[in-house]
């Protein structure tokens, strides 16, 4: 993997640095309190004084400090995004390698399931299940992971199918190595780099999905803040207090764009003209 010192790298680092400061440094500040309501100071615009202290990003309709809420929401989003990527990578790699190494009925079964999932819009599966099962953070992570393993699974399967014909695997097989040993020692290390690239593409998608679900009221439940939920709460005030929905949107953008552009800089998938390489979304 080669890092190109390109504009996209610096842009990505700037975006991610902003998010890192928000989620790591803001909670250390003395003014940090995402839950304290102050109805007397509700809907304070950014950069105005509340009493004797400056309110950097203003307050929401209940007078809660927006900066603090953005920070906590960022931690929640990052946690859900990373946990989902780890879990779905695990599921996807396991199923993909099994399908690609054994072929036959396990392959038919696993890829049939993948095709079934791909034939329904992902958001709809999430809405239906979240509506009926409810949405706590563990449920959300599980749901997002179960709907996003296919991306890893398909790539892992394709790679396993070509790897199993290679000499080093064939020689291990003829010497009596078991399938599990082969998968663990020979296939897994070879597919992991590719899986991490898929994972970084997926991270942005998962974060947007979580924000969309929260926006629809099916993700993070109040009083816990979430960027998507804050945008939806702010939408009623969009005419006179637009910052309520603008600020959380900027946070989502910084995180997603940061991850996207960083992946771009790390993969050499750019064409000769330094244009970002296209990829289909799931």
């Amino acid at each position: 993997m080669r890092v190109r010192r390109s504009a996209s790298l610096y842009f990505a680092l700037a975006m991610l640095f902003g998010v890192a400061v928000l989620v790591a440094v803001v909670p250390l500040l003395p003014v940090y309190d995402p839950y304290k309501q102050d109805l007397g100071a509700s809907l304070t615009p950014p950069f105005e004084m509340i009493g004797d202290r400056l309110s950097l990003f203003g307050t929401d309709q209940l007078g809660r400090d927006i900066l603090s809420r953005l920070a906590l929401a960022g931690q929640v989003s990052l946690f859900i995004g990373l946990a989902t990527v780890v879990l779905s990578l695990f599921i996807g790699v396991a199923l993909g390698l099994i399908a690609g190494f054994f072929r036959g009925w396990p392959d038919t079964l696993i890829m049939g399931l993948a095709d079934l999932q791909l034939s329904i819009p992902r958001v709809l599966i999430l809405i239906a299940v979240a509506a009926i099962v409810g949405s706590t953070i563990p449920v959300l992570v599980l749901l997002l992971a179960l709907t996003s393993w296919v991306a890893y699974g398909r790539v892992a399967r394709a790679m396993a199918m070509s790897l199993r014909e290679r000499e080093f695997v064939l020689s291990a097989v003829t010497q009596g190595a078991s399938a599990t040993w082969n998968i663990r020692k020979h296939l897994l290390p070879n597919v992991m780099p590719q899986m991490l690239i898929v994972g970084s593409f997926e991270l942005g998608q998962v974060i947007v999905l979580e924000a969309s679900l929260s926006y629809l009221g099916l993700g993070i439940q109040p009083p816990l803040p979430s960027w998507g939920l804050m945008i939806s709460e702010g939408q009623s005030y969009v005419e006179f207090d637009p910052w309520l929905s603008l600020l959380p949107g900027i946070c989502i953008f910084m995180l997603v764009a940061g991850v996207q552009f960083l992946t771009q800089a790390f993969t050499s998938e750019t064409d000769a003209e330094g244009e970002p390489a296209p990829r289909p979304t799931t």
Partner: protein
Amino acid sequence: MLKFVIRRVGQSVLTVFGVLTAAFFLVRLAGDPVVLLLPVEATEADIALMREALGLDEPLIVQYLTYLRNAAIGDLGMSLRQQSPALGLVLERVPATLELALTAFVLGIVMAFGIGITMRLSTSRRLRAAILWVAFIRQAVPVFWFGLLMILLFAVHLRWLPSLGRGGIEHLILPALTLATYELALYLRLFNASLGEEQKQDYVRTAYAKGQTRARVILRHMLPNALLPLITIAGLNLGVLLGGTVVTETVFSWPGVGRLIVQSVSQRDYPVVLAGVLVISLIFVVINLVVDLLYAVIDPRVRLA
């Protein structure tokens, strides 16, 4: 070809069957369907009555078969909030959703086509890079927030367009643009990449060697070949578009299936939620089927695969 059609149609039927089955077991897995299906304020007597009415005293397999039979004749249960069949409520909203999704779909393709060609015809690398960067940045913006930005700019600030509801063409512009630009970003990048791929081919060099003009090589030789991947991705991406419609409808209070689903969730009207999800899935499966069959007509290699 007939074999391909039969196999592909069979696959679609299997998918619909799979979705129906998943929906059935999802409701059962989530707990007592009666408690789930009834409003919170239901009494013991209501629960017993409903249990009998729904045939929940029957074995699971019998329930499942009854459910499939009912679904096959279009009976997906009654809405819990309005005294009418869930499917009917959903079908009323389908035209609005299709209007929005198709407008956005066509708008996205047409814009991608126009801008993509312009990009290739122009000799300015900066212009091309700039357009692609904008497309890349657009892809990092969630649909619902982009919609809100559009409302803020065109409805609140400039007061050019209405922000909510469905009506004349002026109501359609903002939600359709919101959806279309997301698609556009993806299409543009793919279209550009596939044009770039074609540019390296021998036939392009031959065409230039024959002394043909740049415009003619691009429009007559490269364009037809570069269109195929665009059509495939556009078809595949309809799922994302339909999913995006659900969110966009909520942002713009567009009275489509997506908004109905989201409203029904907050009213705990589960039969309507499931009916909505099933209908959108069905639309999606049918569109995918049509795209695949069309594709097989255009490109014979697909049939043989």
